[in-house]
């Protein structure tokens, strides 16, 4: 293992610790989090699906990020009560969810796979599940129409599900997860198969659900899309949670690692000379009209950069922290 890899692991632990503490603090203030996992492990025979995971999901949207096979779906199955943990404790709305029928009316789940009852129409499909779930026919019918409208499927409601496109099937899966107005909503890869317009609509819907106070757990591996839905994330990799919290919290927890800042300027060489005097600047790489800085403490660096720009010594056209996004954080942690 290289030195970088060692650092990455240590940083990951630091981030996890900081974010978990933040989560615990939040839970302490607003009461118990609606979804909590305490030292949860799950294994499939000799294969570990989740390894000693502790997480708390607060109301609002939380993104569950990680590559395929990271353990996201295992975590979602545990939260939605489809399986019991091999070790540890899962609590949803104060109860263990596994096979807990009384709790399922308060949980909505949209699985990752796209299978549905193809011989039914979209409307019939949704109605049947609501009716089966205990709603009287009239109420189920009204909820069916509302949910179809909400996911943009009303026009295709009478079409057989077998004739639905991938995106329409995704919308129907989301509709059945939200139609009964659950408090906890678990959406496994909800943007899969959707066209750009559909993605936009579902992203808006997820944000709206979060804003309404639902606890929404949404998984994905397209990072910028998850970032559009929420700033609060949990990064899962190889069955472990590498980091949890808001992107900013995680980034702060990662401050011991250098930040990377790209500055576009008419005189990148002069800018580099000026800013290298700052004690927190570790290195600089100069290009044709931009300079890339590696910075230990971003605060003082940005102050100095602002002063340079304000004094007009050197024209600074734009600057950005290139690792302030999810992709960079994820790359740090899984490296």
């Amino acid at each position, binding site marked *: 293992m290289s030195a970088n890899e060692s650092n990455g692991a240590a940083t990951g632990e630091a981030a996890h610790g900081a974010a978990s503490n933040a989560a615990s603090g939040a839970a302490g203030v607003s009461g118990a989090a609606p979804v909590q996992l305490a030292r949860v492990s799950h294994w499939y025979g000799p294969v570990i699906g989740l390894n000693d995971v502790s997480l708390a999901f607060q109301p609002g949207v939380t993104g569950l990020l990680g590559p395929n096979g990271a353990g996201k779906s295992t975590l979602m199955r545990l939260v939605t009560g489809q399986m019991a943990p091999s070790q540890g404790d899962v609590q949803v709305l104060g109860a263990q969810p596994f096979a807990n*029928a009384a709790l399922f009316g308060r949980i909505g789940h949209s699985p990752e796979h796209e299978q549905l009852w193809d011989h039914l129409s979209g409307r019939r499909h949704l109605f049947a599940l609501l009716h089966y*779930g205990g709603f009287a026919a009239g109420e189920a019918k009204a909820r069916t129409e509302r949910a179809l409208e909400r996911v943009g499927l009303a026009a295709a409601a009478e079409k057989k599900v077998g004739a639905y496109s991938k995106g329409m099937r995704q919308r129907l899966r989301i509709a059945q997860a939200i139609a009964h107005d659950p408090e906890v909503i678990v959406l496994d890869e909800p943007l899969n198969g959707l066209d750009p317009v559909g993605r936009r609509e579902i992203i808006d819907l997820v944000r709206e659900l979060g804003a309404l106070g639902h606890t929404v757990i949404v998984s994905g591996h397209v990072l910028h899309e998850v970032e559009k839905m929420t700033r609060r994330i949990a990064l899962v990799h190889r069955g472990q949670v590498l980091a949890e919290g808001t992107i900013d919290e995680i980034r702060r927890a990662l401050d011991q690692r250098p930040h990377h800042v790209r500055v576009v300027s008419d005189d990148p060489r002069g800018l580099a000379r000026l800013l290298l005097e700052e004690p927190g600047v570790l290195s600089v790489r100069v290009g044709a009209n931009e300079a890339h800085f590696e910075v230990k403490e971003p605060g003082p660096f940005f102050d100095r950069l602002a002063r340079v720009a304000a004094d007009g010594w050197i024209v600074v056209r734009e600057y950005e922290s290139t690792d302030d996004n999810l992709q960079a954080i994820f790359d740090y942690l899984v490296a």
Partner: protein
Amino acid sequence: MTVRVSGLALLRGRRGATLALLCLLPLIAPGLELWREGAGYKGGVGFIAVLTNLCFPAINLIVALFVGCGAIGEEIEGKTLPYLLTRPVPRSALLLGRWLTAVVTSSLLLGAAYAVLYLATVGQMGGEALWVDLPLLGTALAGMALSMVAYSAVFVLLSVVIKWPLLVGLVLLFVWEPFAASMPGTMARYTLLHHVYTLLARLSGDERYTTLARPYELELLPAADSLQVLAWVGAIALALALLKFRRKAYLV
């Protein structure tokens, strides 16, 4: 509630069509015979012959296998089980509801086919024969329903416990049962069909039904004993299936 959804899924799906076709099979033999010779299976003897050769040793069993393995198997195969498992309905109600719906539906369909078969065979002997031989039909329907319950309960258990229930079920039906029945001594009593045949012969009191027993070298037990065996096997299999299903994780 469970029954309603199960019925909906069962009757409108491909599985419903297959089940309906299977249940119509008892009509094939007399149909073919009529088409070939213009006459064939006639009267009570003809009715019992179709039951003996086709219904009880094959069709009923295949339908029961289909019903038992499909109660949950269809949803596992179609990956639609998570939608049902994450609703506020106890797992035991889900399994029991789906099994019950399938048993009742298939028994009604088979029963209708038996009734048509009865009309087609016994009806050829005139209106009075239809009335006189009615106990034959009654016994056949009771035997069919009982065997459906007992066998399908065993197959539900298989579908919950093992990975290839259809294959194991076929082996049980068409390898184990004929093998055990052909063994000397009391080995035949370890087959469900033995008890179904015993009941048919005992309940009808009709000598013609004992022909069912012949291939099994059957020593008839008292009706109550066979009834108890079928009831216990069905109840225990179902209870074990429910117990297992309540705690089983499905990775679909």
